[in-house]
């Protein structure tokens, strides 16, 4: 608990979920959370519970779909996968994110 963990930046959880589903295919909520934490390599303080309202929101927007399936330990679990509009949205948001990051880095470098 001593390591420096940053909060999930506002609005980026959706992007992370979409990217995860895009690269990993169909996953249940726990799988998504585990994947994000693995990629973050412990540098992100993710409240894993917050994934679920986000999943509902993304599904309502039509960017992901969901279905019941069976988990690794043979129990009923809900599996999520990205849809076509979701992929389009992901591309758009990725580009946005890159632009934002680039702008902010330039700004920070210029300020130094």
């Amino acid at each position, binding site marked *: 608990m001593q390591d420096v963990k940053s909060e999930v930046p506002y609005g980026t959880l959706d992007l992370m979920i979409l990217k995860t589903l895009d690269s990993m295919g169909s996953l249940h*909520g726990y799988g998504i959370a585990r994947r994000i934490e693995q990629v973050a390599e412990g540098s992100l303080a993710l409240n*894993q519970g917050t994934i*679920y309202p986000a999943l509902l*929101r993304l599904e309502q*927007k039509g960017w992901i779909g969901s279905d019941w399936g069976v988990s690794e330990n043979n*129990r009923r679990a809900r599996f999520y996968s990205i849809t076509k509009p979701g992929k389009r949205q992901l591309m758009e948001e990725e580009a946005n994110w890159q632009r934002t990051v680039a702008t902010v880095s330039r700004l920070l470098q210029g300020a130094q």
Partner: protein
Amino acid sequence: MSSTRELLLRAGGIFRKHRTNYLQEELNEHIAMLTADYVRAGMSETEARISARRALGNLTRVQEDYHEQNGLPLLENIWRDLKFALRTLRRNRVYSTLCITTLAVGLGSMITVLCVASSLLWTPLPYPNAQRLVAVSEADPHTGRWPFSEPDLLDLQERSKSLAALAAYRASALAMTGTGEPETVQAAAVTSSTFALLGIKPIAGQIFQESQKSVVISRDLWRRKWQMNAAVVGKAIALDGEQYTISGVADLPADLLPGVELFFPLSPRATESRTAHDIEVVGRLREGIALSNAQAELNAVADSIARDNPATNTGWKIRSIPLFDFVLGPRTARMVWMIFSAVALFWALACANVAGLQLARSIARRNEMSTRLVLGASRSRLFAQMLTESLVLGLCGAVFGYLLAQYAIEIIRRLAAENFPRLGSLHLDAKTIAIAALCMLLSTVLFTLLSNRAPDFQGGRELSRRDRGRDVLIVVQVALASVLFLGASLLLHSFVRLQAVDPGFDPDKILSVRVNPSFPASDNTRRVDFFQEVPQRLERLPEVAWAGASNVAPFSGYGTANRFRLDGENSRAQYRSAAWRAVTPNFFRSLGIPLKRGRSFTDADRDGALEVVILSESMAKQFWPNEDPIGRRLLWGKSGNPKTIVGIVGDLRDMAVDALPVPTMFRPFAQLSNAPMTLIVRTKGDPIAAIEDVRREIRSVDGNAAVEFQPLRRAMADSILRPRISLTALGAFAVVAMITAAFGLYGLISYRVNQRRQEIGIRLALGCSTSSIRWSVQKRCLALVTWGLVLGLPIAYALSTLMRSLLYETQPAQPAAYGLVLIIFLAVALAASYGPARRASRMDPAAAIRHE
């Protein structure tokens, strides 16, 4: 697109709660998997479960977020508020019934009156180019408005450029025979241009040309007499003994000529007398010409006619008013506006009343509200809930009000169609309902704002401010009710005066019978004989005391007038005008008009005998102020034939109850035969019982005579119809307003007493007398009512001067009316506070002091 989809899904989510169950399942699964992973990593079972929980964060928060995302919180709140509102309103039955009833009565009357006003005042006449139609009349410098004479009409037609088209008509009652039971039909002689001007199209057959001896009948007459048989076209009928052919059927203009069922041709002739004014004229203004310009031109036309005919037309003017105003009539317009204002006042009162009730309830609920506020409910949520409650009340009120209005309109349509033809098509229209609904909505929001400000935590001060709010609302209600009440009591005063009017005769035992003999009007001798024989035969009936006849049916609203000069006056410009009646000898006896001096007519006053005239008392006084007119002569009409004055009789008013008696000249019918005549039959008992015998006697003289009966009392009642409607409407609103205000007072005073329980208990325990407790309660109520009256009566006075024209022999400052309002409202104050005061004085001091 995705946002619409989201909205729909979320709205649906309110009702799809199973999604929330998925979450629980998913979370459980998540924890299980995470725990298993931790155990695999070497944690103990318990430690692993706790860490898994921690990793998931605040689960309640997750569930709330999920829930909010799943539904639409706003919609959900509204739904919940609605259910809550319905539940609370059902629980507080007295409160909701009072609110809904008040709103329903207010809104119902509002919708009804808006509908009536819209069909009478705001709906154009159903004629083509109706806004360009004007009613044109002549006017003499002394007596005012007159219809046109035939030669004047022809001159107008020829000389006026601003009127594009003219229609002319003369209404009359004709005896229709040759079609079963002879009957009198209301008919009008019309020029053929009338059809085009008023857009009258035949339903069957065709319209007539002026040269033809044809008639056009109304749809009603067609149905009544010929069962809508198309073969009626071409049939022959006799009108006053003359033969006509039916040329067509059409919807005749009921607005302009109420009750007229038959049109026959009118062809004005230049050779007719210029002093016989009996033709009504409607014109259409030429495109682009304003009424004022047309009037200027009509003045010039009148002057030019007067120049060419100085003997008859000197001083005569031509006037034009919009046809709409002519048809509506100033009396009806004033009546509708008055009732409309009454309803507006009543609506304001109803709103104040409901606001007062809501305020009272919000005081009662202040604990609930402050508790919820403390527990974290937002002010906007509380307000939304209050607003929902108000809207539910308003909506219920609106629904009942709508039903009430529908019922009222049905009744009005049935009752009023005869006297106000334009109300025959009265209906609830969308525009009116929209206006009323808007009123309801605005006032609901307004009184929610007024009464339901979220409570503060400083209970005491808050309370006293709200109490003052209730006081103000009650004072406003009393003020509004007193305005209505004063109006009503002025009308009542005026109506009592109208009813008490002495028409100069006793109307209770008189049957008036309109008789139209079947032989031609030109057959003078037969007419004279007929109206001599029929009264004689009637007087032989056991139930008849006297029988006479006059050319004017009493209280029919029509009369006849003529000019005359005094003997010795020869100047052409100097002429006078007075009403005249052609009567049979026993006319005065049957109406009960006293003979003051001289003699009455006899059967000897016939053609060829000395031409005689009898004067009414006021006529004698006005024109022969210092001498006895008997034996003197007056010069009759344009011809100036001298008539010798043989008698003076008492004044009578037979035109309208609220019209003053006018100077009247009576001529013997045998010397001035006229058609049609109205028999005045004085019966010994109930006039209705004599109808059959009277009909038989008339038919035994002329088997085809058309007869129409009316007891005089009813004719009199009909002639004060408008004052009666105004009084009934305003009176009803005033009484309902007063009751509403009284309930408001009662509620407030009861509440006050309840609030003062402890104080009253202490007073009683210390030996205060019950009467002084009672008085202290009633004093409060009297003070509120007094404030209401202080506020209301000056407003009432200001408004009542506007209704001066609706009043008969009644001044707006009538002390009796103010006295009545004062007494009634003080009585209401005492009555409303009687119950609470009694309760206060009978409290058990011990229980009252302990009361929390």
